[in-house]
């Protein structure tokens, strides 16, 4: 087990290295730069600024300088928000994204599995049909459609929620982005749970449990659900990482100062260090969550062994 953990962490390094390299050269090969403003600044000033940020050096030197700094955990200064380092920007934006993302994850896991179990228990009844329809809708509707619709219905018409801004994470401001982020995941979780639960309820061990006179609750929760949770566990890892990516659109629409917004702003302003920082951050999250979900898989399913 320990060897497996070690090996997984070791293979993560080349992946991360590749991501950094591709993004770095992609950005620096592209025409234009962070200080090519429309209001031209005098060339000598521009040269000075570029010297400060080492932008006058050849690209490969900048690359190794960046890698060197990164090895010390230094993500560099932001090129556009002059007085901030990228790390400081993340210190502000990451908690916001994590807060929205984790609530969305919790919501989709709890409500999604509950709906899936309910649909499986009432297989082919009205409620099953209803939940399947809802889940199909949820996974088909893209976020940039559901988000403005939620704003329109609950914000502009009913005045229950803020339609933009973070307002220090007040519930009425956070609920819109959380629900929007959760909806597609919730739909997928419900579908997966329904499928695996129907299969589990037909298993021999469930028949045995029922024959032994266990209560319905015990049969469903203790015996059927444990096996049925497996697909959810393997889905949850990539999904959790996807929440951070999905937050680009949600954070843009709801004007939430999170990592997704930071990335878009950074890309539009060619804030090289900010963009690099975000890509690295997302890559780490993706690798980490996939790893965690594999580990969790082994905990839920004793048949899975890593060695």
């Amino acid at each position, binding site marked *: 087990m320990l060897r497996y953990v070690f090996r997984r962490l070791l293979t993560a390094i080349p*992946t991360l290295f*590749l*991501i950094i390299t*591709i*993004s770095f050269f*992609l*950005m620096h090969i*592209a*025409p*234009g730069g962070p200080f090519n403003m429309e209001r031209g600044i005098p060339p000598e000033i521009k040269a000075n600024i570029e010297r400060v940020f080492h932008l006058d050096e050849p690209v490969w030197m900048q690359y190794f300088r960046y890698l060197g700094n990164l090895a010390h955990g230094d993500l560099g200064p932001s090129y556009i928000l002059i007085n901030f380092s990228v790390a400081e920007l993340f210190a502000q934006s990451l908690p916001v994204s994590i807060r929205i993302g984790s609530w969305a994850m919790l919501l989709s896991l709890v409500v999604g599995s509950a709906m899936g179990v309910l649909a499986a228990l009432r297989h082919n009844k009205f409620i099953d049909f209803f939940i399947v329809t809802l889940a*199909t*809708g949820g996974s*088909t*509707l*893209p976020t*940039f*459609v559901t*988000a*403005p*619709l939620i*704003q*329109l219905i609950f914000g*502009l018409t009913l005045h229950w929620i803020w339609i933009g801004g973070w307002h220090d994470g007040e519930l009425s401001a956070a609920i819109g982005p959380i629900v929007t982020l959760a909806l597609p995941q919730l739909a997928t979780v419900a579908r997966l749970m329904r499928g695996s639960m129907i299969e589990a309820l037909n298993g021999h061990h469930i028949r045995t449990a029922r024959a032994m006179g266990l209560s319905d609750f015990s049969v469903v929760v203790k015996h059927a659900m444990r096996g049925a949770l497996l697909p959810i566990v393997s889905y949850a890892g990539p999904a959790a990482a996807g929440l951070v*990516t999905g937050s*680009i*659109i949600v954070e*843009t*629409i709801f004007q939430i100062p999170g990592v997704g917004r930071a*990335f*878009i702003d950074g*890309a*539009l302003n*060619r804030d090289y260090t900010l*963009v690099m920082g*975000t*890509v690295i951050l*997302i*890559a780490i999250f*993706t*690798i980490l969550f996939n790893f965690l979900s594999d580990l969790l898989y082994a905990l839920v399913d004793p048949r899975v062994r890593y060695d």
Partner: protein
Amino acid sequence: MTDVVAMKGRSLWIDAWNRLKANRAAIISAIYLCFIVLLTIIGPNLTGHEFTTQYPSYVRVPPSIEPYPKADKLDQEIKEIITRAHLTLKEWKQEGGRFLVTVTSTKPIDDRVTRYLDRSDSFKDGKVESKSTDGMEMTLSASVQHLYFFFGTDISGRDLLTRTLMAGRVSLLVGLLAGMVAVTIGVLYGSVSGFLGGKTDEFMMRIVDILYALPFTFFVIMLVVFFGRNFMLMFLAIGAVLWLDMARIVRGQTLSLKRQEYVQAAEAMGVNSWGILMRHIIPNMLGPIIIYVTLLVPQVIILESFLSYLGLGVQEPMSSWGVQISQGSRNMEGASYLLIIPALFLTSTLFALNFIGDGLRDALDPKDR
């Protein structure tokens, strides 16, 4: 000797077609999709509006099956025109389909004043009916120009119906073309990898594994931002992102197909690898490929709309459903139809494509269920 009546065999495709016909959701979706495709192809020419024509008098007018201008707006409209012409309105009335306005001024009125009427979107063929002897009072006539905006107009006063259909044309075209790019790359890559096998296969699939780990949404955004908002680039970026799944599916299929007897027979007859791949392996994978294409097209449409929503995709004056939804959501206060109409078109098309994809999967791959 008895005559042997040859039994007519049922091919895989006829079998699949029969199964598909029994799937009502898929059939209805297919009909709906054909309808949408036809509508986006010929529709923009039938609406009577160009998708770029702006009507300054009708900015953000709501959807209506009755023609514009509305009768109760005529008074306000004529007052505005007369003010713009620096004249004083005496009276106006409607007579036998013609619209009569009597105006006065402190100076003699020029005959060219009818242009003010023509220039407005509500009136056409303005004429001078009569003129007082001193030229300071004049009666003008014009006919009311009836325009239909069944879906209303957008914030620049352009017909939303025409624009939605044009946008649909773009969205569907991008979906199809970028889907094709992804499928072509995926099929070629996957089949070569699976067919060659061994070290090459391992190497090629390792590349796919690594690419899987990259945060692609971010790469697409970076590509589009840093290399300009180029239509072709968008195709390539989307195609380059979505071929990975296809490559994996095709590789798996190839691995099992290449051990079939007919492939060995072809090998024994000296057909070269490329020939076997093109003649025997790829045609036999058509089923899974078709299924994947129908599931891929909605993904591409969503990705394109996502980019367009961020302002990185299709640029004005062209439009796509993503662009429209983005504009609609920015102006939905008081004009929710700007958001709802393109959103309805987009989602219904996505639903239809998904149902068709599911139906095809059931029909072509009965083992799967």
